């Protein structure tokens, strides 16, 4: 089910995410001390192009990566194939991207509008 192109996309996004995940985890470990609050998060990210790019890339990568991953599982464990499978992948990808974009927007530029 997985062609070379999907495979490459999955690996490239994975490699891309590796440093992002480490960064994200580091921030989390730092941030979580003394509890988490909206103000704190927003204080850090609000208006930052850097954070926007950081999480934007993350979201794009994870949408692609996760969609391809779930496609594989849906096929191998769920027996889904053909157009239904393609539809599922695109649906998940689009969904993840939309939700993720909304969140990224919210924590970076959202408040400034």
């Amino acid at each position, binding site marked *: *089910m997985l062609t*070379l*192109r*999907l495979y490459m996309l999955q690996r490239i996004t994975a490699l891309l995410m590796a440093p992002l995940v480490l960064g994200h985890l580091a921030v989390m470990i730092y941030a979580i001390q003394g509890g988490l609050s909206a103000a704190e998060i927003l204080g850090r990210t609000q208006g930052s192009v850097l954070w926007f790019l950081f999480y934007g890339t993350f979201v794009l990568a994870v949408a692609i990566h996760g969609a391809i991953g779930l496609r594989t599982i849906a*096929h*191998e464990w769920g027996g889904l194939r053909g157009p239904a499978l393609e539809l599922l992948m695109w649906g998940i990808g689009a969904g993840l991207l939309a939700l993720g974009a909304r969140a990224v927007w919210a924590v970076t530029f959202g408040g400034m509008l």
Partner: protein
Amino acid sequence: MTTDVLKVTIERGPDGADVFEVPAYDSQTVLDVVSWVQQNADPTLSYRFACRVGMCGSCAMMVNGVPRWTCRTHISKVLDGNEVTIGPLRNLPVIKDLAVDMDPFFDKWVAAEGVHHGTLTRDDPIAPIDEESEARVEANAGIECINCSVCYASCDTVAGNADYLGPAALQRAWTLLNDAKDEGRAAILDAVSGSGGCHNCHSMGSCTAYCPNELDPMSAIAGLKRETARNFFRKGS
């Protein structure tokens, strides 16, 4: 041997299994146990074998849930107490009892371009080849495959993905890719990059873990992934 009677459960089609009591002997393989049942207890039992020495790869079955070459598996190695359960090889259509249809396995072997692509003929001299060269060592690593389908049966990707070419066929493709005499490079890379190709492999390694000849299809498939990836960047397709 601590027991003189074996309790042998043989799975027979979807309708269930039969249990047989088989006398135990010192030198006794799983194939001998199955043969004893057919020759002495139930003449209708179906199974397949030919060489009886691990060369033809036609006797593989599931033994206690593990795919094995039965002619080379000593029964003491698999007994659980004095019990053993034997079933038809996984991931292939069952013809009857323990005999499976191996055609899908071989169809995929051919689909993976698992066949020599040459330009030389019988009128040309035989190509000199350095056996120590890196490519030849790589090609030799997988060459002793007996196409027993044990790896194919062990692989969960095969189980879940009907198109997946499977470890043995892909290993053959990798061998050919490294064979200095083979001219089918483009065709092979193409064949292993399709929807059933090497990229479906999750490196779960059951193929390598269970191959009775200690071959390593998993690494061969990794080789194909590298080679196709390199090609991907080169050609950008």
